[in-house]
């Protein structure tokens, strides 16, 4: 079985308090914030590794990111992926989700046939939750999002469980397919020192725009249909009316107000 996992390097959320908005350029300053695998993509990778253990085959990791993201791909290899491909080119920079899905799709086309592509449902930085479905559209395969369970039995259609509001849908689906997972699907494994050493031997290939066939214009900032018109810190409505005093006085004043409004 050939499984591809799409992994996005994101700035580590543990350090987001250091994120700054440059008021002049209106861009996020993320200098010095270390990268990590998008948290849900670890669950996608875990699902792939479990399936490989069960069915045999290989797990490939694909990422579109700047070249300095290689340590993040090493993390994925240390978790157990066999091989990683980093799609990296200035032409790809600034892609919106259509552009990202398009670039990933041409990279995956070069990788050849696959049974399953696994993605996270959404990323924590952009958080659009759009790439997996758009990737499936470019590749012409079916896709299921919000996947919290997967049952694979050889020779039969697979069963994917997709979370919806207040419940779930169970669907029968045949490979090749794209699935994007939610975090309840599994618990990602820990990486040992041994795994990290092993990962050193595993290949990371870096592919530029010249290594893939871009027949459509959607890649990069120039090709992306959406644009960021503005970026700003959340609107401040102005300060609340403050109730002051020592804690007892504050409590009494608030209770009095709630009483006058009929809440007690």
């Amino acid at each position, binding site marked *: 079985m050939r499984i591809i996992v799409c992994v996005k390097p994101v700035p580590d959320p543990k350090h987001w308090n250091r994120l700054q908005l440059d008021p002049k350029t209106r861009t*996020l300053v993320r200098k010095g914030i270390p990268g990590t695998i998008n948290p849900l993509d670890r669950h996608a990778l875990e699902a792939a590794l479990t399936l490989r253990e069960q069915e045999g085959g290989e797990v490939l990791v694909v990422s579109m990111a700047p070249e300095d993201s290689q340590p993040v791909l090493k993390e994925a290899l240390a978790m157990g992926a066999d091989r990683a491909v980093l799609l990296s080119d200035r032409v790809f920079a600034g892609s919106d989700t259509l552009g990202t899905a398009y670039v990933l799709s041409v990279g995956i086309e070069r990788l050849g046939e696959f049974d399953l592509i696994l993605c996270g449902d959404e990323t924590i930085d952009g958080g659009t939750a759009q790439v997996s479905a758009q990737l499936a559209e470019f590749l012409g395969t079916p896709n299921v999002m919000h996947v919290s369970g997967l049952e694979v039995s050889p020779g039969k259609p697979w069963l994917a469980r997709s979370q919806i509001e207040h*419940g779930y*849908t169970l669907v029968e689906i045949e490979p090749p397919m794209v699935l994007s997972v939610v975090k309840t699907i599994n618990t990602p494994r820990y990486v040992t020192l041994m795994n990290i050493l092993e990962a050193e031997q595993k290949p990371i290939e870096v592919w530029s725009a010249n290594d893939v066939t871009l027949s459509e214009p959607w890649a990069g900032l120039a090709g992306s249909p959406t644009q960021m018109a503005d970026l700003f810190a959340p609107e401040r409505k102005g300060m609340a*009316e403050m109730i002051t005093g020592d804690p007892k006085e504050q409590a009494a004043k608030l209770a009095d107000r*709630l009483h006058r409004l009929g809440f007690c």
Partner: protein
Amino acid sequence: MSDQVESKIWVFVEQRRHVVAEVGLELLGKARSLAEPLQWKVAAVLVGHELDALAEMVLSFGVDEALVADDALLEHYCNQAYVKAVEGAIRQYEPQALLLGATAMGTDFAPRLAARLRTGLSAHCIDLDLTPDGQLLSLVPGWGGNVMARISCPKTRPQVATVLPGVFPVPEPGRARGRMVSLNPQLQPEDLGYRVVETKREEAPKSGLETAEVVVAGGWGVGSKADWTRVEELAAALNGAVGATRPPVDEGWAEEKQMIGQSGRTVRPRLYIGLGISGHMHHLVGVKSSELSVAINSDPKAAIFEHCHVGLVGDLKEIVPPLVEAIKQYSQQEPG
């Protein structure tokens, strides 16, 4: 009946088993107010099977057209079939904008459709604007709510956006004046892509949060599972429901169904009290429509004080107990 569709803004009104998702109605209201200055018409798009009654219902929300894609193969939601059912109509009638709820269905259907049409899509919007020249500007929270982005889609049409549920109010229904147009989807079984085996509603006991008049929500600042009783006591004193931000849910102090915000529930109480909550957009989108909001937080610079009506700077462990006592005394004075 002429089948020429004139609406420039289309709203996908999601239904499962003939029950519509409220966000679809919320968007009908918003679409009408966006369209008015430009004198654009607004359509509701319904996809499914045996939808006549729903078409009547959406028309009562003042839309000009109800565009109905009705086919037995559309009975259960399947993204590829849904895309095929509306793609042709979009190419033919060229709407300027298409709005969908950011639900499980909307977040799956919208990206596939937008990719098929090779157009732009903005996700999880919390506000929408339409410029006089017809550009849709969507407000999108990013980075855990630390920043807001305004997204435009200057070159391609339609401009597509998914909008978080509960951001806009549900409009009042009135007299229907629009008409129904059948989209005639013409699907084959091969168009489905996958087969729905079953759809189960899990007995997620209603938390009562969505309809509660009073919501007391606790955040990370509550401190521990033992201290969580403070949140519950205050809620009980006010006959209210207990809500939470994400950290208390992750820690197991509160249950998943109590989470309020982007990934949780949206509440519309008359009174919201936030205890030990910093005020991330992810949480605040879920409490935006509270009539009166009160926050207790020990950090005077907490963002929540910028978004609520009444603020108390202090330790909730010191303020909540006397507050509960005082409320109980008032309630005893005037029973019932």
